[in-house]
């Protein structure tokens, strides 16, 4: 089947890539664009390890076709730090021990990145429901909740 050229913004940089229509966004990010921070965990849109920010919303990139990203904007964990400065969430995950094996972490960060824009001052319960699309097998979530909460506090305008 003929390949198609698509163009989108990836981590604020324009990219062009030749794809088959059936290629999943997560595969194109990882294999063609070498952004391997976005992971594949379940492939049925349950685990959230493949979460990226797409046109200002969190999506599971295992269940989005790359061709659907044509003309859009995608932000992955690789684009979270700005000019060499870590995002407050990245700092908080380290500070509060919000990760262990690290496999779910990019998805957790990308979801919490968007979540804190949707809800800048969440309660613990709101964090838990806002992050319910991301699975972690290592941490038991408690320290991730803590990290998101402490990042939220840091991100509050003074």
């Amino acid at each position, binding site marked *: *089947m003929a390949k*198609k050229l698509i163009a989108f913004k990836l981590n604020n940089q324009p990219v062009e890539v030749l794809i*088959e*229509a*059936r290629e*999943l966004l997560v595969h194109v990010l990882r294999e063609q664009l070498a952004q391997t921070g976005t992971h594949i965990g379940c*492939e*049925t*849109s*349950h685990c*959230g390890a493949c*979460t990226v920010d797409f046109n200002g*919303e*969190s*999506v*599971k990139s295992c*269940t*989005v*076709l790359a*061709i*659907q990203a044509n003309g859009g904007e995608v932000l992955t964990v690789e684009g979270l730090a700005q000019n060499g400065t870590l995002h407050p969430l990245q700092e908080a995950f380290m500070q509060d021990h919000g990760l262990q094996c690290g496999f779910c972490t990019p998805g957790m960060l990308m*979801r919490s990145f968007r*979540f804190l824009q949707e809800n800048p001052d969440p309660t613990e319960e709101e964090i838990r429901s*806002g*992050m*319910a*699309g991301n699975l972690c097998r290592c941490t038991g979530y408690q320290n991730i909740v803590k990290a998101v909460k402490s990042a939220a506090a840091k991100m509050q305008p003074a």
Partner: protein
Amino acid sequence: MIPGEFEYHAPATVDDAIQLLAQHPDDGKIIAGGHSLLPMMKLRFAEPAHLINIFEIPELKGITEEGSMLRIGAMTTESELIRSALINQKCPLIVEAAKMIADPQVRNRGTIGGDIAHGDPGNDHPAVMLALDADIVVKGPQGERTIAAKDFFLGTYVTALEPNEIITAIRVPASTPGTGYGFNKLKRKTGDFATAGATVVLHLKGNTCDEIRIALTNVGPTAFRAEAPEALLQGREIDDALIEQAAIKVMESCAPAEDLRGDAEYKCHMAAEMARRSIRDALARAKGN
């Protein structure tokens, strides 16, 4: 898990989409948010040769007020429903249901039209549409027609939508004084289909229930209205004893299949319990309205 090959189409308008569907009657498939269809394609259960993406079509988006009705574009996502001030104000039942669907990321892609068109007995909007007495607006080569929700859901994956038609919008009545709703869904965990769900919309005139619709999720081949308990409650002052009688009738109306969520007996009981809760919630809200 990798989908088979297909040709991708992204029509700009509904008419273009309908035309594409007409060109590929046997092997064309509409994709909305894709969270039901893409997993089936990745498992190679579904292998459409032509995938017609309607997710981005502008005329399928948006929520507007049309007199006493709300018109919801078919491609409105669950997240957009939850965020909509209009829906929150005029039809909060939809918000409550949408919040219980899947998880935040999936709700950003999942659409109300896709949820309804798929015909899965486990989907949540069908029962909500039945309880609201909604209209499903569909368009095909012959133009637009409206199908009442009660005539829409025919069986597992079988709906009144013709293969050459697309759902364009949903029309639901805005809530009126004296109307109350209840939505209760039992699920094993976040992201699961309901073990059983019950949606109730009722209207009180004084203390008398003069209108009630009870719709059930995942306890039959499709979402359906439980008419016997409705008939029992209609025109009555609903009290606990009556709710209990209604719950038994709910149970009798269920025909669930056994799966990992439970056997038929459990599911029938859970449908009854969800119905009890939804009737009580609806009553409380109707009295508060």
